[in-house]
Every structure is written in C-alpha cells, then in structure tokens.
C-alpha cells in the first residue's frame, strides 16, 4: 500500500471526485438551462477516473488495455458524431448494450478466476457477480435487438402462442443455472449461464413492438447501471458502485415516467405485446380523400390558425428544415402557426423537440399536449406530418383498441385536417386509424420531405 501519499490513495481520491462530478453532472442535465454543462462535468469525471486507473497496483497487459481503449473510443466517437439526429435513439441503445456487455464480461472473468484459481470470492461477491452477468447479459443482447429494430434491420415482431410462459420458463431455467453455478463454480457452468442470459435478452425483446422501444431501452439502461454497480462491488471499485447505482435508480424512475407518458404500464410493455393481431377497430372505414399539394397550400395560406403535428415520419424524411421554411412563409402570410408535440412523438420522449430545435423552430411555437388540445377546435387546419398513432381517435373512443387510453392530440376537433403520409398502411403500432377516413380529413400522400416541398411550392405560386 505504500505511504500516506500512495498511488492507491490517489486513485481513491480520483474515484471520489469522479463520483461527485457524476452526481453534479446528472443533476445539471435534468434542467434545461444547465443541461449542456452537465455532460461536460460528467465527462471530466470520466477522464479523471480513467487516467487514475492506469496507476492501479499490479496492472499488466497495458498494451492490450490501451489498444482496446483507443480503438473503441475512436470507433464510438466517429459513429456518434456521424449519426443523424433522427437515429439517436438506436445509438443510445447500442452504447448502452456495450456497457451492459462490459459489466457482464467483467463478471464472467471474475467468476472464471474463482473457478480456476485459488482466488476466492465471498458469498456476497459471488452472488453479485452472477446477478451482474445475468442483467448485464440481458442488457447487451436486448439492446442489440432494440438497435436492430429501430435501425430497420429487424422489421418484424416475433410472437408465438404461449410466448410469455415460454419466456418465463426460460428465465427460471437461466436463474436455476445461476444457482447451480454458485454451488458448482466451473468454467462450463459459467459459459452456460452467460449464454442463457444473452438468449433471454433476445427472447424478451423480440416480441416488443417498435412503439414501445424507448421504454425498453430506458429499462435496459437501468439494468446496465445495476450490473455496473454489482460488478463494482465485486471489484471493490467505489466509482462503479456509486455511478452504477445512480443510473440504476435514475433509469428505473425515467423508465416509469416514459411508460406513464405513453399511458402504458411497464408490465404491459414487456408482456402485453401490442399491435398487429387484433383489429377490432378496423370496421367503419370508408374512403380516404386525397388532396393535391397546391390545394392544401391554399387552404393553409388562407387560414387564421394552423397547428402542425410532427411525427416520426417527419424525422425519417429529414423534413424538419423544410417544415420550418414552410412555417416562416405561413407566418409571413399572417397565419398563426403552432407546433403540437405529443410526449412520445419521434422515437423517444423529447426526441421531436430536439429535432425541431435543430431546424431552428423557436421554443415559444412549440406546445405540449395538455396546452394544445383545447386549442384544436379553434384551428382552421391541423397539419399532421408523419404521425399516426398519437392522433388516432381510437385511443380515446374505442375501448377495444390496443392503444385505448393512450393520451392523443385531438386533431379531429379542428375544422380541417391535412395528413401527410407515405402510404395507406397502418402506423408503427400496426393499428388502423379512423382519423384518415373522417369527412374533414384530407390525405396528402408522399414522403414528408416531398410533400412539404409541394406545400412550399404551392405557397410560392399564390
């Protein structure tokens, strides 16, 4: 251990400073005015902790450490810089899965050591190492599936009858393997347990529809935090224990807040796979009425009040900048324009606000659901762009619908509704939308980018 000013003391101090910086950073990130500085505080903490760790007693394999560290940092840094704002959610899922995987691999390593050498672990450490492998493994494979789904690599929900029971039995089997490994610490058992956790993560995530993905990513984020905290105990690393538990708790609460914003319980998200199957609301449909871009532009130009409802389709088409151009033209024409943001518009709560901010839309034009809903009946036109489920009246009117009870933007109360939509298919949740068939609804088919360009063109020709 050396003298008072030993390296190990310096490391402890660094970890303490890092923990404080993480807490301050997270706190600042939870308020809009200070959010930007928050990530920098936390980042400084990370750098301090990482540098100090090189001084740990008895470290070897430095070349391996530095090459893994450098290659991953460069790759992640570049991918993080290059990814489009619209694809952020799946990148968060990917990076989160990596963290969970890291914790799981650490746990497995420590268990291998306990199995093959005289190196002994206390019962508590062994248990937490196993639990860390379990939830870290689920977080790794589950996050990768979530990434694949949002990235469009996996475009189906895989369900089969009795899936929940099968998954529950599988989970019990994996936990049993964990208990068995605890009693018989052997390399093979650790492999089976680790592999089982990875498969369980895949099984759990496959049946969950894309609309629920944000909640799932947030849940796995909390999982990773817990796994990191538990492995931190195994390694007796204070920074990991505190930072991991901080994220574990914050992530759990954040998951609940998100589920609440979508009016779904966590259990419902995980086990009540929604969408597809039941189409009880597919009844009284009728015809969709198409409208040309030029006509739609005229309708809007001569309106007093227009409310724009942007959804994920807007983000996919990268049409937020064009939309802002259209908005400015309308405003110059004396039209009062507002943006209505559903809490889960985009792929995650708050995602749409970020995208609109990127395009330069001022904050005071953007209204939350509670504030805007009473205003729809005074609006001449509600322009829905690439949003579907969040404006589906079935959520309000049809108790048989699987999205019944989810709060929606009540666009059908406005005098006219113009819906920009790519095709005639159902939305992300796979549910038919009665709004599209209402008398006061006009459909403008096309990619959001093209459709908004048509509107701009129409405005110019006035």
């Amino acid at each position, binding site marked *: 251990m050396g003298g008072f000013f030993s390296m190990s003391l310096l490391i402890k101090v660094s970890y303490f400073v890092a923990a404080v910086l993480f*807490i301050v950073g*997270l706190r600042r*990130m*939870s308020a*809009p*005015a200070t*959010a930007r500085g*928050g990530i920098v505080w*936390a980042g400084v903490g*990370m750098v301090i*902790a990482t540098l100090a760790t*090189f001084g740990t007693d008895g*470290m070897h*394999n*430095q070349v*391996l*450490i530095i090459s*893994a560290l450098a290659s*991953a*940092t460069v*790759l*992640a840094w570049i*991918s*993080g*810089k290059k990814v489009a*704002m619209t694809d952020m959610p799946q*990148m*968060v899922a990917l*990076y989160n899965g*990596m*963290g969970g995987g*890291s914790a799981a*691999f*650490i746990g*497995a*390593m420590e268990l*291998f050591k306990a199995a093959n050498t005289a190196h002994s672990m206390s019962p508590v450490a062994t248990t937490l190492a196993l639990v860390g492998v379990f939830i870290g493994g689920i977080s790794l494979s589950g996050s990768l599936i979530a990434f694949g789904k949002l990235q469009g690599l996996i475009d189906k929900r895989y369900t089969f009858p009795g899936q929940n029971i099968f998954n529950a039995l599988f989970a019990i089997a994996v936990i049993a393997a964990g208990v068995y490994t605890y009693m018989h610490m052997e390399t093979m058992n650790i492999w089976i347990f680790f592999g089982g956790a990875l498969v369980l993560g895949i099984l759990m995530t496959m049946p969950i529809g894309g609309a629920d993905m944000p909640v799932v990513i947030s849940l796995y*984020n909390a999982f990773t*935090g817990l796994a*990191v*905290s538990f492995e*931190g105990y195994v*390694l*007796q*690393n204070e920074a*990991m224990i505190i930072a*991991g538990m*901080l994220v*574990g708790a*914050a992530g*759990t*609460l*954040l998951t609940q807040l998100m589920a609440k*914003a979508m009016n779904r319980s966590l259990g419902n998200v995980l086990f009540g796979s929604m969408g597809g199957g039941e189409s009880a609301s597919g009844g009284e449909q009728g015809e969709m009425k198409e409208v040309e871009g030029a006509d739609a532009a005229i309708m809007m130009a001569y309106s007093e009040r227009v409310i724009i409802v942007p959804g994920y389709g807007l983000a996919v088409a990268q049409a937020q900048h064009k939309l802002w151009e259209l908005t400015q033209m309308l405003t110059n024409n004396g039209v009062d324009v507002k943006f209505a943001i559903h809490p889960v518009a985009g792929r995650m*709560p*708050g995602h749409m606000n*970020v995208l609109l*901010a990127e395009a*330069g839309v001022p*904050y005071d034009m953007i209204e939350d659901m509670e504030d805007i809903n009473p205003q729809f009946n005074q609006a001449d036109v509600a322009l829905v762009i690439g949003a579907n489920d969040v404006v589906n009246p079935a959520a309000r009117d049809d108790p048989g619908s699987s999205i019944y009870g989810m709060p929606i933007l009540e666009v059908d109360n406005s005098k006219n509704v113009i819906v920009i939509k790519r095709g005639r298919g159902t939305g992300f949740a796979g549910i038919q939308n009665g709004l599209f068939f209402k008398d006061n609804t006009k459909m403008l088919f096309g990619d959001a980018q093209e459709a908004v360009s048509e509107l701009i063109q129409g405005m110019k020709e006035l």
Partner: protein
Amino acid sequence: MIDGFVALYVFMLAAFVGNEIISKVPVVLHTPLMSGSNFIHGIVLVGAMVALGHADTQLEKVFGFIAVFLGAGNAAGGYVVTERMLEMFKSKKKDKKAEGEK
C-alpha cells in the same frame, strides 16, 4: 474495503440520490437524460481496465479485452451523442433569458 452493511448503505444512498435527481425532469429532457445516464454507466470502463490489467489466462485476456472495448465504446459514444443532443438546447438564447427572469 466496502463490505457488508456499508455496501448496503452506499447502494441505498446512491439509489435515493439517483431517484431524487430525476424526479422533477421535464419531458423535453427525457431523451438527453437517458443518454446522459447511459454515458455515466460507462464508468464500467475503469472496472474493465482493472480486470484486464490482472488477467492471466488466454480466456481472461480475451474477455478482458472485450470488456474494455465495450466499456470504452459506452463511455465515448455516450458522451458524443449526449453532447450533440444537448447542443440543440443552446440555440434558444431568448428562452434561456426568459427562464432567468422567472
């Protein structure tokens, strides 16, 4: 050493702090905050470094290498993505002033 009940207290207190910090967050910040907390558990990197630094067998080295790689990816990627998201909150200078006046 953090052991037994001391560990339990640390777990408990950290959990309360995490819970408390998030409890008043506006919806606008949900995504950036998820991303920010995602960055913070990138601290797993330091554990992975220590583990690889003490790895002896071939298997341990492979696992340790993967752990460091994944942990560093978590930390670096998490930082960049969060920073870019929060960057969006900068352009609203007027808004910030308005909040300052409150």
